């Protein structure tokens, strides 16, 4: 049970501003996601929450208590590191037990808790091995078990399933989401995979060079991106950003954005768009079009019959258009 609040927190490393005046609140029991490209400050935010870094400015509060200068051990937060950081000289069992042993939990309780977590993560059969003898996926599960074994105020995870292959990742994120619901704890999650972020997060924060650009539910961010940067970060294929002219445009708009799935196309020999590429993906087909000076991507269901060179009528519903000012900010309305 923890509500984590950043109040105008900044952190610099030499000349680099890793986190710039971040203010936000992660609510109790929330699955909260930091999302952004590499070096955008995601990991620094986690380290600030853990107490591994002390902010240069601002305050950090956990459940209303100022912990800005509290050491990591006293914050009662569990962490899964990106490189997992298992203790190589200990067996998986001793790794998972470690947080309880260090906190002086009675032995009988440790054993019970260990068995419970091992069963949940299916690692009972590998507990006697050292991390060096485990596969990547097994190590990941042991690292997650080490975080889950105690009862912290919040869990932090730094891209913990990045080493898994695509299919296992999908399973793992569903599993993580379920475990977070069951544990009823705040979970702060860092990922560079937008699909992963959107699929698990209750709310997410979008980072760009140490600045939080927007916070909201995945749907809010997707439907009403605050800047053209956020708009392009979420969604695949990425949002089409084109100069005004092709669609009805509000005054002041320097860029018009339209998501590939919001574009409507119909064959029309006199149409203004020309097909330049067709990528059938099974359930979906991605068309690449040229219309005037702009190139656009269109996402269509199924496998409609379009061929390169074909001319199309192109159009989008007015309410599905996003208008951005020259500085990248969304125009109101």
């Amino acid at each position, binding site marked *: 049970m923890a509500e984590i609040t950043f109040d105008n927190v900044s952190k610099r490393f030499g000349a680099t501003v890793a986190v710039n005046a971040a203010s936000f609140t992660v609510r109790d029991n929330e699955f909260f996601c930091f999302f952004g490209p590499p070096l955008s400050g995601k990991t620094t935010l986690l380290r600030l929450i853990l107490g591994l870094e002390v902010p240069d400015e601002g305050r950090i509060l956990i459940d209303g208590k100022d912990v800005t200068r509290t050491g990591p*051990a006293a914050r009662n937060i569990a962490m899964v590191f990106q490189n997992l950081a*298992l203790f190589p*000289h200990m067996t998986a069992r001793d790794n998972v037990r470690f947080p309880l042993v*260090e906190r002086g939990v009675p032995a009988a309780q440790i054993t019970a808790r260990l068995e419970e977590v091992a069963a949940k993560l299916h690692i009972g059969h590998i507990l006697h091995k050292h991390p060096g003898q485990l596969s990547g996926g097994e190590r990941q599960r042991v690292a997650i078990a080490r975080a889950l074994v105690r009862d912290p105020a919040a869990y932090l995870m730094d891209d913990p399933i990045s080493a898994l292959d695509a299919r296992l990742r999908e399973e793992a994120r569903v599993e993580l989401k379920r475990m977070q619901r069951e544990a009823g704890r705040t979970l702060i999650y860092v990922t560079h995979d937008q699909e992963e972020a959107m699929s698990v997060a209750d709310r997410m924060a979008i980072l760009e060079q140490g600045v939080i650009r927007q916070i909201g539910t995945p749907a809010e961010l997707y439907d009403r991106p605050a800047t053209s940067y956020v708009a392009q970060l979420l969604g695949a294929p990425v949002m089409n950003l084109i100069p005004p002219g092709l669609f009805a445009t509000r005054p002041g708009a320097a860029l018009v954005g339209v998501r590939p799935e919001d574009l409507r196309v119909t064959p029309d020999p006199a149409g203004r768009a020309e097909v330049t590429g067709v990528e059938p993906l099974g359930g979906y087909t991605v068309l690449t079009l040229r219309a005037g000076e702009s190139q656009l991507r269109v996402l269509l269901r199924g496998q409609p019959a379009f061929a390169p060179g074909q001319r199309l009528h192109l159009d989008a519903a007015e309410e599905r258009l996003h208008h951005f000012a020259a500085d990248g900010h969304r125009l109101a309305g």
Partner: protein
Amino acid sequence: MQRSLPFQLFRYAAIALALAITLVPILWMVSMAFKPFSEWQSAGANLTWIPNAPTLDNFRFLFGDSGSDLIVALDRTAGKPILSSLLSATIGTVIAMTAGTAAAYGLSRFGSGANLPLALIQLRLFPPMAVMIPVMMMWAFLGLMDTWWGLALIYGIVTLPFAFWLMKTFFDDMPKEIEEAALVEGCSRLRVFTRVTLPMMAAPLAAAALFVFILNWSDYLIALLLTTREWVTIPVYMASLSSSMTGQLYGAKAALGLIAAVPPVILGIMIQKHLVRGLTFGALKQ
């Protein structure tokens, strides 16, 4: 990988040749150690690889039994020098490793700037002689001349930079997240060090300790300058094994050399498991 028989034969032949070349001095020493006086003394006349009449006379001689056919007698036996070497090299290694490891950890984790680590090896920029003469005077003033503890202290000081640099490299190579994980999971800084860092460093520590021990064990110059009689070490004592009548006492020297080779070899075997891991530590991040 299955390779052809001729290749295997060639491989082993090459290895045998390499071993023969590198091990000849050792073999020669072992052989000499067990030769009676008549065989090692007139080496030019009848050179033998293997003693014709193997004997332990050389060893007996070292420990004061003059029942051999040597006409000389030693004014002191090898027992005290061996004890002196063992004490000074071991305690010196303990001093260097303790201080070196602590300093390396501190500077690796909390240090800033590159100058301090470099300053620690500046002693090495001078020829040892230039440093040792002032040390000799200090030791005389402090009453540390010709004592095993005086020797142990200077060994610890002289090999400290090696211990420091070896350990610093190992600490620098260790992923910092492992210590951070322990911090987050409830350890104090000190407890992280004893519970996580040191156990992980067992292999590098063993390798560095062996290296430092061998440096101390084989020192000649410092012991020559800082000991005179009571606590001379094996190398200094070995140099004194000669007589005006027979010249160099090669048999006794070989026997003492063989004894001197024992501790490093035993240590090496004891930590063999760690040694390879220690020397290749950086390559083994998980």
